[in-house]
């Protein structure tokens, strides 16, 4: 069971993507807990996740988040902006799984 967290400004558009990713995970038979939170909430969840994905519009959080996550060995990345815009759940899921390898 892998836990994937998505972060954007208010957790609105990422929550759309979460639904698509859950469907993709189900189709591929992957067990994953995927959820989206607002930027302000992100710090409260850092101990329960295996990977963090940032919406491209909040890519400026990357440096700060990296500082917090690297000591824990948790990978993070900014979601590919075209995949984000087209809400490609399978592609973003793949990105998350690749990061955890």
């Amino acid at each position, binding site marked *: 069971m892998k836990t994937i967290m998505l972060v*954007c*400004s208010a957790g*609105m*558009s990422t929550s*759309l993507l979460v639904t698509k990713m859950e469907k993709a995970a189900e189709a591929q038979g992957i067990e994953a807990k995927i959820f989206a939170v*607002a*930027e*302000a909430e992100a*710090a409260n969840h850092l101990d329960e996740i295996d990977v963090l994905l940032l*919406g*491209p*519009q*909040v*890519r*400026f*959080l990357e*440096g*700060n988040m990296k500082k917090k996550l690297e000591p824990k060995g948790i990978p993070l990345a900014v979601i590919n*902006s*075209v995949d*984000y*815009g*087209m*809400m490609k759940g399978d592609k973003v899921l793949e990105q998350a799984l690749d990061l955890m390898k």
Partner: protein
Amino acid sequence: MNGFIAFMEKYFIPYAAKIGGQRHLVAIRDGFITTMPLMILGSFAVLINNFPIPAYQKFMNNLFGEGTWQAFGGNVWNGTFAILALLIAFTVAYNLAKSYDKDPLSSAVVSVATFFTIGAIAPGVDGIPNTGGLGSTGLFLALIIAILSTEIFTRLSGSPKLVINMPDGVPPAVSRSFAALFPAMITVSIFGLITAFFQAAGVTNLVISFYELVQEPFMGLANSLPAALLLAFVSAFLWFFGLHGANIIDPFMQTINIPAIEANVKALEAGKELPYIVNKPFFDSFVNLGGTGATIGLIIAIFIVARKHKAYMTVSKLSAAPGIFNINEPMMFGLPIVLNPIMFIPYILAPLVLVTVAYIATAIGWVPACTIVTPWTTPPIIGGALATQSIAGGVLAAVNLGLSILIFLPFAKIAQIQELRREKEALAAEGVTAE
């Protein structure tokens, strides 16, 4: 155009991104976000008490007796707008301390104490305490206090010299509670002293003086067409480069928004002209239709003139449902609008035109100024009617929606022509290689 984009990406965007992550601004924004549900509730209390239909007022008076049924709205008001500055003193300090990884609860409590130290409730001349500082009048000062007191308190709490050493055997939880003792006492005392100096100099109500000297002129400055144009421009401009523009300017927006709304509500109750045209519901209801840049206009324009552009149609269909609730990331990154040279002009122009139209329509009195804080996800047109408590507000939002479609139409058409030409060329190229 490409040179310009490359230039901006290199020299401007990194700085904008820094502002977006600046810890004090983030703390202010997140502090306001925490109070949002209360401000929306307070707004609806105002709506219930002042619903602008005489028949409704009469009905309520007959049902519950004149003057008594407003008590509910008044009570809710007392718990929301009337204590805004107090809430902000707490929430901003909490978020700031959290970003420093220091004890957020202690910092927030110290900040509230400090806010009272400087006179959130000032002793009045006639012995009746003046509670005005708790509401939006004290807002700017509450923000400043939250930041200063937290900066001082979190630094002092890090100092080993100020920690009382407990003998062995004392539970760690107890010794931790003593850790905040001296830092808290010192922080609050500093501001107690500062206030005493001001009082000795004849400034008896620091909050009101600060309001008159700084907050009121600043709000007046922000309540102008150029200021509104600037805010609309910055937000759309940052979004064009893929940064969450609204998020980055939100600390400024929120700070002028709530006092402006409260001033409007007070004027409404007193039957005076509404003083502040520019505020956040103004942008949410009349400018950011479907999201920053009025992108719902683009979706509709594509449905009208660019049906043959397959990629645009796919994204527009995907974006229509979230767009109704003003979420436009699929349009921004999927179409994409971000770094798209064709879309640059309409995307920046649309909000500027909508701001101008909405400002003028409000200034000449066709549409009342906003008095209600609506959630930013309220669908277009409904949002305009709700925020202004008027049909005219809904009509203005609809007119602006029409304008945004007109602005995007030619550019959607150009995009389609280019796409079709590219397809043709690709086909021709394939034909050549097949031969």
